[in-house]
């Protein structure tokens, strides 16, 4: 699966989509809950726009088709693991066809907060067959890069407790009752999710980033990785002493 080029389908072309028309860049930020993805996507977006790129940012359950249905289903207490997986897959397919692909056709940089890998990790953590969900998600596009913000469960716990101040039912995998309280549930569930993502990191060539550091350090790492010969840099205003952008990240 990972031998394909960026912006090709993993294994299952979407009917009616011509891969050769896709020209932008697709960057994926992956990682477990509470690791700080959203912060990083926000910083990256701002930076890339300042560099003169058109950016689309998108994330799970934000699609117009299924986003609301997913939130409502999660608000109740009857959403089963199979249904959850397929609901998220539907939402992803909707965003892929109606937001991501049109943006790529137009030459945008697409930043996605989570991707097929989180859908797979959550499904696998719930005991679903890996090959089943992998085949279904074969209609995903190969990204230019997957940045995996990796942290261990202890670190995630401290971010939840010191940050938000409370555990969330779904992030604690309480639908599967991995523990009989949300702390134990969180630890058990997120351990499984991280394990699944670690396996994928090898298989799908993730760029693994140590997310236990400060947001600024993580961001600097991401900037360094993204700034590559392939990414066009915007023209700069000359600074007062004639040198160009002394605070810009270095190229590789």
């Amino acid at each position: 699966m990972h031998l394909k080029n960026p912006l090709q389908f993993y294994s299952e072309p979407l009917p009616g989509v011509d891969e050769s028309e896709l020209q932008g860049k697709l960057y994926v930020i992956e990682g477990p809950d509470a690791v700080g993805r959203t912060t990083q996507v926000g910083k990256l977006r701002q930076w890339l726009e300042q560099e003169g790129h058109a950016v689309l940012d998108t994330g799970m359950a934000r699609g117009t088709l299924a986003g609301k249905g997913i939130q409502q289903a999660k608000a109740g207490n009857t959403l089963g693991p199979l249904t959850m997986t397929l609901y998220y897959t539907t939402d992803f397919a909707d965003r892929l066809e109606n937001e991501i692909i049109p943006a790529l056709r137009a030459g945008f940089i697409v930043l996605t907060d989570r991707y097929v890998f989180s859908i797979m990790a959550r499904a696998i953590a719930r005991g679903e067959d890996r090959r089943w969900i992998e085949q279904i998600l074969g209609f995903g596009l190969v990204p230019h890069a997957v940045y995996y913000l990796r942290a261990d469960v202890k670190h995630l716990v401290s971010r939840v407790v010191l940050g938000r101040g409370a555990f969330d039912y779904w992030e604690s995998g309480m639908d599967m009752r991995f523990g009989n309280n949300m702390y134990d549930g969180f630890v058990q569930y997120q351990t499984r999710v991280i394990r699944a993502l670690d396996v994928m990191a090898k298989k799908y060539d993730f760029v693994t980033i140590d997310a236990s550091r400060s947001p600024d350090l993580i961001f600097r790492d991401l900037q360094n990785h993204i700034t590559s010969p392939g990414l066009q840099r915007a023209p700069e205003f000359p600074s007062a002493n004639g040198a160009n952008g002394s605070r810009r990240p270095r190229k590789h």
Partner: protein
Amino acid sequence: MSLLSPNRYRGKLIVVEGIDGSGKSTQLSLLSHWLRAKGYAVAFSEWNSSPLVKETTRRGKRKEMFRPTTFSLIHATDFADRSERYITPLLKAGAVVCADRYAYTAFARDVARGVSKRWVRNLYSFATRPNLSFYFRVPLDVAIGRILRGRAALKYYEAGMDLRLSRDVEESFRIFQGNIVDEYESMASEVGFHVIDATLTIEQQQMQMRKIVIEELGAGLENGLLRYSPSETHAFEKPSAVL
């Protein structure tokens, strides 16, 4: 390819398939009543009926938001909910579950929309294989006639208007439903459909179905199924629920 997961539960799964206007729903309803009258616990599940998903589907259809892949996936999501929360537990408990449309509807419709055969079969691989699958074969004209007599108009997705087959709704319906029929016909022997001629009278079709149920499930109808003893049949007012 071995379709779907074998039914290892105590209960029995009976499904009806066919295009709209084939009369399958009427026949399944009659069959359910008959089985209930015989004292079996009968549960009924129909396509597009999950409380968690049907609003999303309805809205998506109304606003024409679906593409072939999302159309396929939302229906699979609906099916997954009915499967894991309703069909599977009831089969395990020994009920006879009657489903109006099943995975084969997806195999026929989604493929007619251009989705990969292999992909959609994998998608539904978690579904329990029916003990009996009935396919109601009906000429397109008869089906269209029945639909138009029953309601005002043909619907957008039902007519395959999203596929730009024709500007005329009825012509689009013909082409699209014709393609669906082709898919059903081509899977008939692989699935093991019992084909019912939908142009026969209602009574004739029902007799055929009952005969097949007795022949095919015969002994199975005695073992493991939940059944009311004669003294119990009056104790319950409504033997089974509809999702």
